[in-house]
């Protein structure tokens, strides 16, 4: 016990020392900025200093021992395991996009907060302690041991199904993380997007390649500290500025009524109404052109081509010619293409013609039916996110790393605690920034826009993070004239609060840490599934431990490069599917994991059928209802959005698992004693 205590104290000292150094680094940079260091240098320094830091931790904890590589030697104290899991969990989406989602969608986006925290109840109560008692290496390991049967009684079919699910889920997720790394790096340091990706990749690789789970764990603890400081500092500052109370989680309740009053005022403001009328007219113009297809497409094409000729004839400037050529190139190539583009434009204009929705009102809608539909979608999304959380392999894998079952339970508590430190702040940040924009930016003069607006408007030329155009030419900013990308919220908070640029660099470092830490965990989950479950357990069970670790490292390298290559292609389809990964994970793994512990009668055939049908229903629903995948909104069941396909997939998987298990032979004695073992106290 005393050695455990000493280890804990030593780790605590190390990380306190680290936090101190980080503070000193921040202070030094603040002084340097005062001394006139250019902004871009601060961006570079943050990016390189943190990446070097993660690499150093990776090198210090390098290992080629199997147990250290796969499960960090099973001696990570609960508190630190909780911190590492929290960093594993807080992805780029949580850090950057969640607050923006709350800003844009109000109450509806709270489904993510509820779903992504409530899932930990299921992890703690139903899965994590039993995985730790089992004490192997991966999630497919657990399922294969529980549902031993099939070829040679080693549960290989179930194992391979679980490996497949792990890879599909983790791969979409890791591509999104690496993509975020590229975005953050290019926005803050101005390096090329793909250079940013490969810089991030280098840091991920040094860390996980050398030390596997052990290096990842200790890096993630450091990353969590950076994430926390980066998220809390600007928000606390903003809260102190607006409310006079530096605890935003407690204080933002005071701003909500003021925000609601301002929203009501803006909803009926005559100038706002005028801007919205302009957007309605634009949408109507697109609707007319769509109705007049294909003649309107022909006419439009002739018109742009005519303009090009005219510019060439009058020998206009090169810039003019180029601009007109670009317009010709951008013009839809076919009438069908035109119909698609124009209806998108019509929808975008119609969306901007709507009055702001009240932030804190649950499920606003014109009638009871639409309001009910929004509530049902909220419930379905919460359900899917919770069950998906409880089935994500890179999170569950972490239950193997603590010294005992008891520590695993405590570790889930600490995980949720550390996640909540950030998650409870996110709604506060959204409300505070919304209030700031609604009261200070709206109504201000176009010639005196704040600095942060012009800075962030110019950062990403293709998809501007914020764009303000004077639609009704009155020289004053109206709310309806602001087009804002949710991501800018967190990135610009330091400047909105009037903090020095160092804090913006800190936020970028935090976002980078969030993306890198999640990518680390995901890559390890994929490469472990391939090396341990496919190579060692199926292909070559006689492989030496040395060979297993080497294979695992090589696979990690390969998967990392494939993921980075996929991310560098900016795949819109993969990125839009990240939300769906939760439904997929829940449908594939959750029934088999939970019934494996709580129902002795569940057998190999049942588990296999349950997994197949869960995934099948989930994918079928997504394909049939997601417009991106070629489905249509009209074929939705109960008006449930495709992202919540798990709401049908999980019950289907559960029902099929039960039915098929009951129809086939009960599992043998070996399975029964296995279940008794994982249920028994230590």
């Amino acid at each position, binding site marked *: 016990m005393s050695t455990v205590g000493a280890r804990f104290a030593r780790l605590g000292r190390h990380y306190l020392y680290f936090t101190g150094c980080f503070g000193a680094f921040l202070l030094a940079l603040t002084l340097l900025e005062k001394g006139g260091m250019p902004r871009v240098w601060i961006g570079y320094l943050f990016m390189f200093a943190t990446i070097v830091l993660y690499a150093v931790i990776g090198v210090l904890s390098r290992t080629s*021992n*199997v*147990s250290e590589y796969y499960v960090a030697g099973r001696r990570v104290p609960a508190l630190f395991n909780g911190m590492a899991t929290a960093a594993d969990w807080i992805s780029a989406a949580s850090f950057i996009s969640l607050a923006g989602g709350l800003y844009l969608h109000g*109450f509806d986006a*709270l*489904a993510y*907060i*509820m779903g992504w*925290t*409530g899932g*930990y*109840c*299921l992890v*703690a*109560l*139903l899965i994590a*302690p039993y995985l730790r008692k*089992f004490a*192997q290496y991966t999630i497919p390991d657990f399922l294969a041991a529980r549902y031993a049967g099939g070829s040679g009684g080693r549960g290989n079919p179930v194992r391979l199904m679980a490996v497949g699910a792990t890879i599909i889920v983790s791969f979409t997720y890791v591509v999104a993380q690496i993509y975020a790394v590229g975005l953050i790096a290019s926005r803050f340091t101005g390096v090329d997007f793909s250079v940013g990706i490969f810089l991030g990749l280098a840091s991920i690789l040094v860390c996980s390649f050398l030390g596997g789970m052990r290096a990842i764990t200790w890096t993630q603890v450091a990353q969590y500290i950076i994430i926390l400081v980066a998220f809390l500092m600007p928000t606390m500052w903003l809260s102190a500025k607006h409310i006079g109370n530096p605890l935003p*989680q407690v204080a933002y*309740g005071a701003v*909500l*009524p003021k925000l609601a009053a301002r929203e009501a005022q803006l909803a009926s403001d005559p100038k706002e109404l005028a801007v919205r009328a302009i957007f309605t007219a634009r949408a109507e113009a697109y609707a007319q052109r769509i109705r007049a297809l294909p003649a309107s497409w022909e006419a439009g094409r002739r018109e742009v081509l005519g303009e090009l000729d005219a510019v060439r004839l009058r020998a206009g400037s090169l810039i003019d010619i180029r601009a007109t050529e670009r317009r010709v190139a951008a013009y839809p190539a076919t009438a069908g293409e035109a119909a698609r583009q124009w209806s998108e434009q019509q929808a975008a204009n119609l969306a901007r013609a709507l009055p702001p929705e009240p932030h*804190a*009102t*649950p*499920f606003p809608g014109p009638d009871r039916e639409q309001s009910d539909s929004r*509530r049902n979608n*909220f419930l379905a999304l*919460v*359900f899917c996110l*919770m069950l998906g959380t409880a089935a994500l392999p890179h999170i569950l894998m972490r239950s193997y790393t603590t010294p005992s079952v*008891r520590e695993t*339970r405590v570790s*889930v*508590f600490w995980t*949720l*605690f550390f996640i*909540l430190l950030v*998650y*409870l702040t996110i*709604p506060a940040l959204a409300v505070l920034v919304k209030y700031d924009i609604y009261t200070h930016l709206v109504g201000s003069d176009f010639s005196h826009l704040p600095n942060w607006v012009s800075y962030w408007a110019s950062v990403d030329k293709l998809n501007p993070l914020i764009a303000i155009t004077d639609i009704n030419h009155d020289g004053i900013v109206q709310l309806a004239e602001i087009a804002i990308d949710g991501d800018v919220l967190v990135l610009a908070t330091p400047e909105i609060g009037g903090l020095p640029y160092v804090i913006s660099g800190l936020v970028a470092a935090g976002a980078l840490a969030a993306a890198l830490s999640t990518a680390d965990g995901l890559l390890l989950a994929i490469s472990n599934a391939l090396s341990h479950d496919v190579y060692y357990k199926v292909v070559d069970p006689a492989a030496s*431990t040395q060979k*297993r670790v080497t294979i695992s490292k090589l696979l990690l390298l390969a998967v990392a490069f494939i993921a980075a290559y996929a991310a560098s292609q900016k795949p819109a389809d993969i990125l839009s599917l990240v939300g769906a990964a939760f439904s997929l994970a829940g449908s594939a793994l959750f029934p088999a994991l939970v019934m494996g512990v*709580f*129902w*002795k009668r569940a057998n190999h055939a049942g588990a296999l059928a349950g997994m197949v049908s869960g995934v099948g229903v989930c994918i079928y629903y997504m394909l049939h209802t997601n417009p991106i995948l070629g489905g249509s909104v009209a074929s939705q069941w109960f008006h449930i959005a495709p992202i919540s396909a798990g709401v049908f997939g999980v*019950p289907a998987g559960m029902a099929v698992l039960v039915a098929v298990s009951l129809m086939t032979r009960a599992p043998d*004695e*070996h399975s*029964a*004693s*296995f279940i*008794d*073992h*994982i*249920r*028994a*106290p*230590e």
Partner: protein
Amino acid sequence: MTMPTDPSSRALPAPPAPPATAATVHPLNPGATADAGAAAQRQLAQLAARSRHWQRTRCLTFALLAVWLAASFCSVFFARELAALSLFGWPLSFYLAAQGAALIYLAIVGAYAAGMRRVDRRYGRELQQQSGPAPAPEPGMPARGETS
């Protein structure tokens, strides 16, 4: 979440068959009847203690899951009705979805860790007493390759 009732658990606390591996740990020797009787009795007592432990675990788990379900479902399903109430300035439904539910989840996970610690300690001691001074190794899979 729906948890189908567990048919095998209705047969508890008398599990249908002693675990095969446990039988190999305590081989019944037909020659020494007194010894064998005591061993069999010890084994039965151990099984009973185990099934009581599992029953307590399940009770705690399902009770806390009920709280989890109520907190998640009710706060969303009745959100429009709860919006009229206010808590320290927040509309109640907004507060529950943004922070309240998450804090309840944290309390659930904390209560589970504390409760299971008590349950494990109590039945762990009971099991150890029954298995004599040298506790029997747990049946199941030893972790392979850990020591390499």
